[in-house]
């Protein structure tokens, strides 16, 4: 069978449109969770914060402006079907060009070198994770993630016998230490297993999952629920000003790991969790 041909120009157009839409329009499942939290929040100050976030989301969508000035370093997960032949140039360059186009009127938040700190001027390059998968489709998921929450994220290489208790303590500790800095209510992405690099990617991937969908593995779905309860028992609340809703969801993703280790990574997403996906 001949491979399916797909022009990288189509990828560029689709990714630019995806990013543009995601910065002005927050996911429907998140807005629904925010509305439910607003209805149930007991703290007057917390409720006021949630109301302002809802008003902000409405205003941004109506006016076509970004929900948050921090439109981050875009993180792209690109799954390329092995029966696809990408034509008309470099995929990496097409993705960069898509970012350049989408960020023309957005803040330029990327520096070329972490020590020299010269702004790239066009918000490139994105962080890209490639994966080769069966099939003849290309699936691209984007996270436009502010760095307030990114800065509070953490990773720990726990020992093999640490067990669920230590994992829970660490996750709650990360959220608590982040406090108001992560712009709660947060969405908590937890990676378990794999290696040092792999567990961080799992935690980020956990943030791609829509709210309201638990992990299909029963023991992880239970862990997600228990972690959410433990985090919300801190009373930190929206924006750290007190309340029941510190987190709206906890998503756990896991992978096989070494007999010595129980790696755990916690990647927090803020109150403007921009996320979008396209299949070509």
């Amino acid at each position, binding site marked *: 069978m001949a491979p399916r041909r797909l022009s990288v120009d189509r990828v560029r157009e689709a990714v630019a449109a995806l990013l543009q839409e995601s910065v002005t329009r927050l996911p429907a499942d998140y807005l629904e969770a925010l509305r439910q939290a607003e209805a149930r929040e*007991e*703290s*007057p*100050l*917390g409720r006021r*914060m949630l109301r*302002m*976030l809802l*008003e*902000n989301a409405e*205003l*941004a969508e109506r*006016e*076509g*402006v*970004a*929900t*948050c*000035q*921090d*439109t981050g370093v875009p993180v792209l997960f690109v799954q390329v079907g092995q029966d696809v032949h990408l034509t008309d140039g470099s995929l990496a360059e097409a993705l960069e060009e898509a970012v350049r186009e989408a960020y023309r*009127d*957005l*803040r*330029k*938040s990327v520096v070329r070198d972490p020590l020299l*700190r010269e*702004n790239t001027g066009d918000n490139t390059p994105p962080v890209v994770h490639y994966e080769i998968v069966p099939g003849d489709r290309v699936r691209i998921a984007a996270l436009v993630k*502010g760095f*307030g929450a990114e*800065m509070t994220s953490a990773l720990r290489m726990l020992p093999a016998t640490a067990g669920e208790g230590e994992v829970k303590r660490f996750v709650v500790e990360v959220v608590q230490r982040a*406090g*108001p*800095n992560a*712009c709660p209510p947060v969405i908590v992405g937890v990676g378990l297993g794999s290696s040092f690099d792999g567990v961080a990617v799992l935690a980020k991937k956990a943030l791609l999952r829509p709210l309201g969908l638990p992990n299909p593995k029963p023991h992880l779905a239970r862990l997600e629920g228990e972690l959410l309860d433990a985090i919300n*028992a*801190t*009373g*930190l*609340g929206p*924006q*750290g*000003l*007190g*309340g*029941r809703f510190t987190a709206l969801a906890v998503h756990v993703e896991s992978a096989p790991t070494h007999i010595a280790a129980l790696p755990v990574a916690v990647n927090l997403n*803020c*109150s*403007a969790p921009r996320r979008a996906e396209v299949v070509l």
Partner: protein
Amino acid sequence: MREWHLRTPLREEDVVRLRAGDWVYLSGVVYGARDVAHQRMAEALLRGEALPIPVEGQVLYYVGPAPAKAGWAVGPAGPTTSGRMDPFTVPLLERGLKATVGKGTRSQEVKEALVRCRAVYLATVGGAAALLARHIVRAYPVAYPELGTEAIWELEFREFPAVVVNDAHSGDLYAIASQPYARS
């Protein structure tokens, strides 16, 4: 919840009556600055040079605004994490800075300087950048324009909403806010 409508520049009497948990609606000129601008101001002070903006009685907002769309004075302009400005803040408070606005916790050093210098720290809503931009009616880079979004911005606020986190009497909203809602 007590509410105050304040106009900048702020006087000491405006600031000392504020208590952690009060709401403030700020109007008037406020300067926007973030990491690199703070670093440059600190370096200028070390060299004995003048600062590019007045600080006495003034307010600093920790922000790097997005570009403005037609019909807007400024693009989305929510607060950035204040703690990164902690190492540069005390010398500014000692020169009469009366308030800083951002989000997130401050260092012990900054909190003590707020009491000593009679100033306050206010938080506004992280992630409500479009809504907050509606309370900024004028914006232009007034110093270090080559830094782009990281320049020092002269902003005119109109009824900009914020909550007092650290007051001039050691009151600390973040330290007490979770207690009524915490469960063991």
